[in-house]
Structure formats: C-alpha cells, structure tokens
C-alpha cells in the first residue's frame, strides 16, 4: 500500500488535489481536557444541510481521505446522517472521538458504514490519571468499554496517547493496553497553543528527559540508531522541498466553515458559507502563500543542520509568529533527538523554554 499511497500523494501535491480534509464537526465536548486547544462554547456549527453540501463539494474536488473530529463528534445528533452521506460520496472515513458515547448500536453502525478507522484518546491505563486529564469521572471506563465494543465489530481502532506532564510516564501502560485490546497505538508528545493564541498550555509539555525516553524506545521509533543519527548534508532538492502537505494536498475546516491549511495552522483562507470549497482551495491568497514556501525561503531554517530531517510544522511556526520562522517545538525535538542544536537555538531566534514538542510517532503493537 505504501507505494500506491506515495504515488497518490505525489500526484495530489503536483495537481493540487485536496486529497485529505479534516473537518471538525463541533467544538462542543463532554470532556474538559486540561491540554485542549479549543473553545467549547460554539453555537454556530454547520447544519446537516450545510454539511451534506460541503461533502458533495469535497467529493467533487477530489477529497478522498476524510477525518471527522471535534470537540466530541458524538454530541452531534445528526452524526450518523453525516456519516451516511459521506459513505454515499465515497470518502475514506476516519473518526476521532473520546468514544464515551459509543454503545453497542453506535459501534455496529460504524462498522456497517465501513468507517476505516476510529482514533480514540486514552491518556493512561490508570483511571485516576486519565480522568484527571479529561476532568470527567469514569471517562476511562466508558472509553475502554467503547473500544471493546468497536473491536467486537472488527472496527480498526487507534488508541492515541497525548503525553503531557501529568501522564508523562503513561505511554508504556497505554501501549500494553492497546495490544490487549487489538488496537493500533500512537503517541503524540505535542501540546499546542490554544487556537485563540494563548500559549500557557505549553507549560504542560513533557520535559527533555521524558522526550528522550520516547526517542529511545524502539517500539515507537524503529531503529533508535537511525532515528537519533545526526543529520547529513542536504542537496538542492531538499531546499526546493515543501514543508508538509498542509495546503498542498490537505486542509482543515472548522465547525463553522472556516478553511485552514491544517488544524494546527489557523490561517483563515476562506469560509464555505461564503465561497465554494474548491474556489477557496484553488484561489485564496492564504493557500497561495503557503504553497509558495520552499525550505530555501526560510531565513533561519534553510541554514539549519536539521533542514533535511526536521519535522518543522509551519502551523506551529505561524502560531509562534511567522510561517517562515522556526517552530521552537521542532527545534527542541531535533535537538533532543540528535544532541545537535538547531540554527534557531544557536542564533537565539524563536526559541522558547525547552518544554514544547511536536512529534507524532506511530507504532503497531
């Protein structure tokens, strides 16, 4: 599948097909996670009719991979009507949920509709830790029950463990739990700023020692020697490369129709209540600027030793001040991974306290 996927991604990038779109159906939530970057009081969601129209537009534009997330998507009473329409339009559907509201009926319907994957947040195998993060009593118990129901229906479940100070040591327990439940496992030691710009959440990020422990865990990173190897010299092709798929072949749509390059890149490029999705995708100035950026255009990062291997997130850089600037979270990650400071660290530009990181490591257990 990797070769087909790579070819598909390359073609989408070359032809500017919005292959993947992440839609937040709601920002309302039944949990109050300490690290959440969203406001939950959001009365202006796209209606079912608007969602159906948007799905039609996205299918016509070539969107194939559709992620429906939130907030908590099961708070929308019309969720299954949306899923049924998405199925009719041929999307590869992935859901992100805390699963608290998934019972037997919901699990069976998800399976019937051919949902490809359900990603569920679990912060610890210990209820005291998980429930303290979600601020919802018995939430771990309800979530695990739902995972078991989904697995009984053969639904592909991914357990996602966001790591932060309160659960820094939790990943091994959650990884073991995922194995027992027949679920895939992924961790994300990334706490991002609030979408309103508040950066105080970053204080929750795990410290360097805990991040290093993750980077030295073979079941998460594969070959530790290769993963932590110092970066080599780069060619012109790297400097001519694009940072990531955001705005090139992927996009994000908020519950009220704002279109961003990515959920972590809150550059409003248009709103689907005012323009057709494809017109925003093709013609907005915001997408145009994002697409024009090449590694060689980055004043600090282009001269960095890590330019060829860094997972620099342009969205986090944007939230830090400039989409052309460094993302301190990624500088930190490159440093902890290899022991070699980034150009931004050496220049003293754009660096922040060494506490926030961006990395997504997936491992099948």
């Amino acid at each position, binding site marked *: 599948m990797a070769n*087909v996927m790579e070819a*598909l991604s390359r073609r989408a990038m070359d032809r500017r097909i919005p292959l993947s779109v992440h839609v937040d159906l709601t920002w309302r939530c039944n949990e109050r996670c300490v690290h959440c970057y969203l406001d939950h009081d959001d009365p202006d969601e796209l209606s079912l009719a608007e969602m159906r129209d948007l799905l039609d537009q996205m299918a016509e534009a070539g969107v194939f991979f559709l992620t429906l997330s939130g907030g908590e998507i099961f708070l929308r009473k019309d969720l299954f009507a949306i899923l049924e329409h998405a199925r009719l339009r041929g999307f590869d559907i992935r859901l992100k949920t805390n699963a608290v509201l998934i019972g037997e009926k919901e699990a069976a319907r998800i399976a019937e509709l051919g*949902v490809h*994957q359900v990603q569920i947040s679990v912060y610890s195998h210990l209820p005291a830790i998980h429930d303290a993060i979600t601020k919802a009593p018995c939430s771990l118990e309800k979530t695990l029950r739902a995972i078991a129901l989904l697995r009984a229906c*053969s639904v592909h479940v991914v357990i996602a463990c966001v790591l932060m100070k309160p659960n820094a040591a939790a990943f091994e327990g959650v990884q073991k739990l995922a194995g027992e439940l027949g679920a895939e496992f992924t961790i994300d030691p990334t706490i991002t700023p609030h979408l309103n710009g508040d950066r105080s959440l970053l204080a929750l990020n795990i410290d360097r020692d805990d991040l290093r422990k993750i980077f030295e865990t073979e079941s998460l990173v594969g070959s530790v020697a290769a993963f932590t190897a110092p970066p080599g010299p780069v060619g012109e092709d790297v400097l001519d490369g694009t940072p990531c798929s955001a705005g090139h072949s992927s996009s994000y749509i908020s519950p009220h129709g704002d279109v961003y390059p990515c959920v972590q890149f809150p550059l409003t490029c248009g709103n689907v209540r005012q323009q057709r999705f494809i017109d925003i995708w093709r013609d907005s100035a915001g997408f145009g600027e994002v697409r024009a950026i090449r590694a060689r255009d980055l004043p600090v990062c282009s001269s960095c030793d890590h330019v060829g291997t860094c997972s620099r997130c342009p969205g986090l850089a944007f939230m830090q001040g400039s989409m052309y600037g460094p993302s301190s979270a990624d500088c930190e990650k490159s440093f902890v991974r290899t022991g070699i400071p980034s150009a931004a660290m050496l220049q003293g530009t754009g660096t922040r306290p060494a506490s926030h990181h961006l990395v997504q490591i997936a491992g099948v257990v």
Partner: protein
Amino acid sequence: MEPHHVTECYPKRAPNLAARVFDEGEVIIMNPVNSTLFNLNETATAIWLAADGRTTLRRIVERDIVPVFDVDPDAALRDAGEFARSLAEHSILHLLSAPDEKVT
C-alpha cells in the same frame, strides 16, 4: 469459480468501500476492512464503474472496453476475468452467478 465462468458472472462493487475517480479516469479504492489501497488504471476503472451487479463481465467488456480501448476482444476478456477474480479475492468486487434484482 473457474476462469472460463468468470466472464459470465455479474460483477458488483462491494458496498461501503471508499472510492474516488480522478480526472485521468483512474480510481482509488480503499478497503476499510484490511486497509488495502487499490489504484485502478483506466480500463480497470471502466470495468469497476460498470460493475452494477446486473451486467455480465462479458457484456461489460464488449460494451465498455473493446469499442473504447484499442484491444483484442479475446485478450480483453481474459484480462478482465483475471482482474475481476483479483478484486473478488480482495473482497472489493462480488462475482454474482445471477443478476442482482435489488439493484435499481
């Protein structure tokens, strides 16, 4: 099913698959059960799109492949049979022995 029978069966796309047809006439199909991704070329896509459960594979080839693509009819039928069996093995195409009356 024996190879010579495949052309007389009624191929039908499996339900609840993710699929997208791109401008070049190619289709991408994802089987969510086993996360298998398929990329069909133009002729395979023509067969896939015509697989409505009420038309035999032979008829699909005669109607949608031979007149459109520059191919030998016997070779086209043979290739189509192999293709249909392959997709059936991956559970993204059903090979029905009788037309599906439920299809509207």
